């Protein structure tokens, strides 16, 4: 395999004194402060990576990514999405099933899985659809997808809600035998007919049909009750309201096996972005209010929300540079996620680096059942990690991101923290902001 790599003077989880980390054959083989200039010469063919001032964290895991392949390769491919992920510090991503054709069968999920392996920058895990064609009517062949080479363990109709309570109950019940989890896009469709924006004062004034918080909260409450009823695992996608946090807190307290994610954009942006009607700010669920943002940040720090997931959603220019109601919902997220988490949680003191590792790596890996991701930075563990420069800043430019699409709502913003190096089982996939292919 690769020659040994010595990461010099890195702070693990941003804690304690800098240490040197020796990686060989994809595994962390030694950690210590012994490796000065003299002793490194003893290591045959060793490459040295100067990590002075950097923070090491386990590689990030994104439970919620849209890679658009197959079907919309004009907006993103597994190759470009993998590059964006690696640049964002990710070592594993879950590719949502709402492709064309839909990933509701073993053929499509194996294709996605295989393309991910060929690209090799991150572990690409396909998410399987819960229902055939995402239609919400009939369960897809979940067992076959689970047994395929892709080994699907996360199922979701994301983009659409599994709205029928009986179908949802059956899906939850059935996946118990697969050691899998249903990830629900919580949106009661009858309450969001024609919805364009968070139902509130701003949308009302702008004449944009409202997407009420209750449309999310009622489905989350229902699904928590169902998951408890059938003793199954539920994962809630992109939590956007403070009411959902209340429901989750209650459900967790009574022992429901529920986990939940929050997106970086819901941690930072509000419906103030509706002014001017620029659809780069259109997303589903919609941007909410300042008080929702505050509650989401605190809930993530506290653990009521388990993890950060990007809902990275590339879109073509013509699908965004149009009138609001005609625009597709969604925004890029893979390359900006860490910086937004640092800006919204680390800098204000809500989360330390250990906490960042928890919400961006360890918990998502646990939720998805990945045995070799989100592991501790310790001897004998896989060298699947990210080195972050916590002092650096960068300015977001959509055109410079690795995605084919450029629909970032953070355009022109100066953000803290830069991903310096990403490493997948000892292989450097990104260093100094460049993909190593």
């Amino acid at each position, binding site marked *: 395999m690769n020659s040994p790599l010595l990461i010099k003077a890195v702070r693990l989880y941003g804690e304690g004194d800098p240490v040197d980390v020796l990686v060989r054959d994809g595994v962390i083989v030694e950690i210590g402060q012994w490796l000065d200039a003299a002793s490194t010469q003893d290591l045959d063919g060793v490459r040295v990576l100067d990590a002075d001032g950097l923070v090491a964290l386990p590689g990030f895991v994104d439970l919620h990514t849209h890679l658009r392949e197959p079907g919309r390769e004009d907006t993103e491919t597994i190759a470009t999405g993998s590059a964006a992920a690696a640049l964002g510090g990710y070592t594993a991503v879950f590719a949502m099933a709402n492709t064309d054709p839909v990933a509701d069968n073993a053929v499509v999920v194996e294709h996605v899985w295989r393309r991910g392996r060929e690209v090799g920058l991150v572990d690409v895990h396909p998410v399987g659809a819960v229902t055939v064609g995402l239609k919400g009517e009939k369960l897809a062949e979940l067992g076959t997808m689970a047994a395929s080479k892709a080994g699907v363990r996360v199922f979701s109709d994301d983009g659409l809600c599994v709205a029928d309570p009986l179908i949802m109950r059956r899906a939850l019940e059935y996946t118990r035998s697969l050691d899998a989890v249903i990830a629900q896009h919580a949106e009661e469709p009858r309450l969001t007919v024609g919805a364009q924006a968070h*139902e509130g004062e701003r949308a009302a004034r*702008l*004449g944009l049909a409202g997407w009420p918080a209750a449309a999310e909260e009622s489905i989350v409450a229902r699904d928590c009750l169902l998951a408890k009823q059938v003793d199954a695992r539920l994962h809630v996608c992109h939590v956007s309201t403070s009411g959902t946090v209340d429901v989750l807190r209650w459900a967790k307290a009574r022992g429901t096996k529920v986990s939940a994610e929050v997106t970086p954009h819901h941690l930072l942006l509000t419906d103030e972005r509706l002014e001017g*009607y620029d659809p780069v700010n259109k997303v589903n669920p919609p941007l909410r209010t300042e008080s929702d943002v505050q509650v989401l940040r605190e809930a993530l720090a506290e653990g009521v929300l388990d993890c950060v997931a990007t809902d990275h959603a590339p879109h073509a220019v013509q699908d965004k*540079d149009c*009138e609001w109601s005609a625009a597709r919902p969604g925004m890029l997220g893979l390359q900006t996620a860490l910086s937004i988490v640092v800006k919204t949680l680390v800098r204000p003191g809500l989360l330390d680096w250990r906490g960042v590792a928890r919400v961006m790596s360890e918990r998502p890996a646990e939720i998805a059942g990945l045995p070799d991701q989100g592991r501790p930075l310790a001897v004998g563990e896989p060298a699947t990690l990210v080195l972050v420069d916590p002092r650096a800043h960068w300015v977001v430019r959509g055109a410079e991101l690795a995605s084919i699409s450029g629909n970032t709502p953070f355009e022109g913003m100066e953000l803290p923290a830069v991903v310096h190096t990403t490493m997948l089982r000892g292989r450097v996939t990104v260093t100094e902001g460049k993909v190593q292919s």
Partner: protein
Amino acid sequence: MKHLLSTDGLDPATATAVLDTADTLKRTLLGREVRKLPTLRGRTVVTLFYENSTRTRVSFEVAGKWMSADVINVSAGGSSVNKGESLRDTALTLSAAGADLVIVRHPASGAAHRLASWLEGTGTAVVNAGDGTHEHPTQALLDAATLRERLGEISGRRIAIVGDVLHSRVARSNVHLLAALGAEVVLVAPPTLLPTGVHSWPVTVSHDLDSELPALDAVMLLRVQAERMHGGFFPSAREYSIAYGLNERRLALLPEHAVVLHPGPMLRGMEIASAVADSPRAAITDQVRNGVHVRMAVLYHLLAGEEEAA
């Protein structure tokens, strides 16, 4: 004024200037055999309508023609727009083809704002002739002109807007403009047809039309669209009409001087009884007449320049 996209944020001085210009134009044209002013000769005005409309389009077209502008009508049914061309491309095409001003009506809220942002730097002005459920600023201006004409002034007057406020661009534009001009605005509607957060608007809210009528100087009825009647916003057309329709009994509850307005098209027998619509208290045809002068004034302020207008 660079564009006219909304009355939200339109300052009272500018609004009053437009209304004064409309008055002047009306007086100038009164009794003239040839109703044609040379003011906008050589200027090109395009109406770009993505929704059916008779009164608004005709009103703008007449306004442009009376000012001697070249008026070109583009409709969603009769050009490349129904071949799937984007709004952006259509806007840039019209601008490049020489449009000095584009009047746009579109079913998407914010469409006029988007158009204005795409045309930034081209010098083409945009007038919003109705965008989704957002605003219809020239309707509010012509309503204000009619109220001024009938009531003398707007400041201090109490005006009710009755009906489907939730989906009404006319209501939004009127709330902002009337409040800016110093009127007290009352919204009268069932709770299902009021927008979220209406308490933050510069209005009071009522569900009881009868109790509001005696104190009003004007009542403005909104059109109830057919799709709302079947959307479960209220139980039936009959129940709506009983609670919120302006019939002869209710007309008698209004003070003598009070005016009845309706932006049209009217649903006679539902929102408004025929006898009310045709009574001298109703200013509905005045609204249409004033619409032309107000739109002439808007074109004048946008195309003939601020300094001349001031």
